[in-house]
C-alpha cells in the first residue's frame, strides 16, 4: 500500500516536473564488499566529491551516510538520486577479529559495539528505500545467508534490486557464480576501485530506477 502510494507520487512528480524526485537508492551488502567504494565512485563521477572513508578493516562504515541530490545522466536522460550508504550486515561481530589489523583492544571493542548498532541501523533503513543496489564481493562465495536474507527482505518489501558484483579486478572474481546464485536479478560486474564497467552499471541503475 505504502509502496504503491510512493510509486504514484513519483509518477506524479515526473509528469509535473519532467524528472523524478530524489530517488533513494540504498547500498546494501555484507561487510567489505565495497559499498562505500561504489558510493564514492558514483559521487566522484557526478559531484566530484567522495562520500565516505574506505578501509580494508571490516565495518569501517558504522553509521548510515547520505549524499543528497546526485544528478546522474545516461543516454540523454537525467535522474536525481539520494545515495544511502549503509553499514555491512553480518550475523556475528567479534572484536578479536579487529585485533588482527593492529587495532588496540579498547578501540576494537568500541568498533565492535558501533558495528552491531550499524547492522541494526541498516536493517531498520530497509523500509525507507526506493531501490537497492546489493553490493557483493565477486571473489567471495555468494551463497551466504546474509546475502539471501538481504535479498529476501527486499523482495518482501517489493523494493527493486540491482546486484553489483564488485571487485572484478581481482583474479578470483567470478561474476557468473553470482549470476547463477541469483538468476532472477540483474547482475553487473564492476570494479568500484578502478571504475571498470561503470557505464553498464549506470544503464542498469536507470532500469532499476524506472521501476520505483
Amino acid at each position, binding site marked *: 500500500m505504502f509502496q504503491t502510494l510512493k510509486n504514484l507520487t513519483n509518477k506524479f512528480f515526473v509528469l509535473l516536473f519532467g524528472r523524478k524526485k530524489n530517488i533513494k537508492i540504498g547500498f546494501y551488502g555484507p561487510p567489505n564488499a565495497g559499498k562505500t567504494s561504489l558510493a564514492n565512485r558514483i559521487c566522484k563521477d557526478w559531484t566530484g566529491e567522495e562520500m565516505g572513508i574506505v578501509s580494508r578493516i571490516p565495518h569501517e562504515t558504522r553509521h548510515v551516510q547520505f549524499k543528497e541530490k546526485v544528478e546522474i545522466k545516461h543516454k540523454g536522460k537525467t535522474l536525481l538520486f539520494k545515495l544511502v550508504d549503509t553499514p555491512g550486515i553480518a*550475523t*556475528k561481530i567479534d572484536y578479536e577479529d579487529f585485533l588482527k589489523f593492529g587495532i588496540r583492544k579498547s578501540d576494537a571493542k568500541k568498533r*565492535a*559495539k558501533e558495528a*552491531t548498532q550499524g547492522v541494526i541501523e541498516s536493517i531498520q533503513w530497509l523500509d525507507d528505500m526506493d531501490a537497492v543496489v546489493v553490493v557483493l564481493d565477486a571473489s567471495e*562465495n555468494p551463497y551466504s*545467508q546474509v546475502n539471501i536474507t538481504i535479498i529476501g*527482505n527486499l523482495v518482501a518489501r517489493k523494493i527493486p534490486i540491482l546486484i553489483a558484483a564488485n571487485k572484478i579486478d581481482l583474479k578470483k572474481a567470478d561474476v557468473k557464480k553470482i549470476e547463477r546464485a541469483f538468476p532472477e536479478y540483474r547482475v553487473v560486474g564492476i570494479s568500484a576501485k578502478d571504475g571498470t564497467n561503470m557505464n553498464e552499471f549506470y544503464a542498469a541503475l536507470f532500469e532499476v530506477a524506472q521501476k520505483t
Partner: protein
Amino acid sequence: MIQKKLKGLSLQIIPYSEIEHLSIVERVKKLLDLILNNKIIILHGRLRPEEEARLIEDTMALVGHIKNFKGIELAVIEPDVYKANFFEKIKHGIAKSLIGNSVALTIIGPASVIKEIKRDPKRLELFLR
C-alpha cells in the same frame, strides 16, 4: 600428558509446528534462548525474510551485552525452486501456504560454537570451533 576435553555437541531439532503459532517476537526469542544455551538448532522449515532480519537485529542487540556471545551462524537448505518446472513450483507454493516452508531446513547456532557454515547449491559444510 595434556588431555583435551572434547565437549559434547548439543543439537536441538525443532519441528515447524512448534513455532508456527508464535508471533515473530516469540519465535526469535525462543531461538535466541536456545542459542544462548550453546545449542545448535535444526529447524524443520525456514523463517520468513522479515523474521531472519529480526533475528539478526536481536542478535546484534545482544552482542557485547552477554559474556562471550559473538553472534550467530545461520544457513538454510531448501530445494532449488527456481529450477523446478511450473507444476513443481505450484506444488511447492501450495505446500508452503498450507504447512509452512517445511521442505527447508534451517541451521542456527552460536558463533562461539560454529566457526563457519560454507554453503553452495549442492552442499552445506559446518565447521565447529
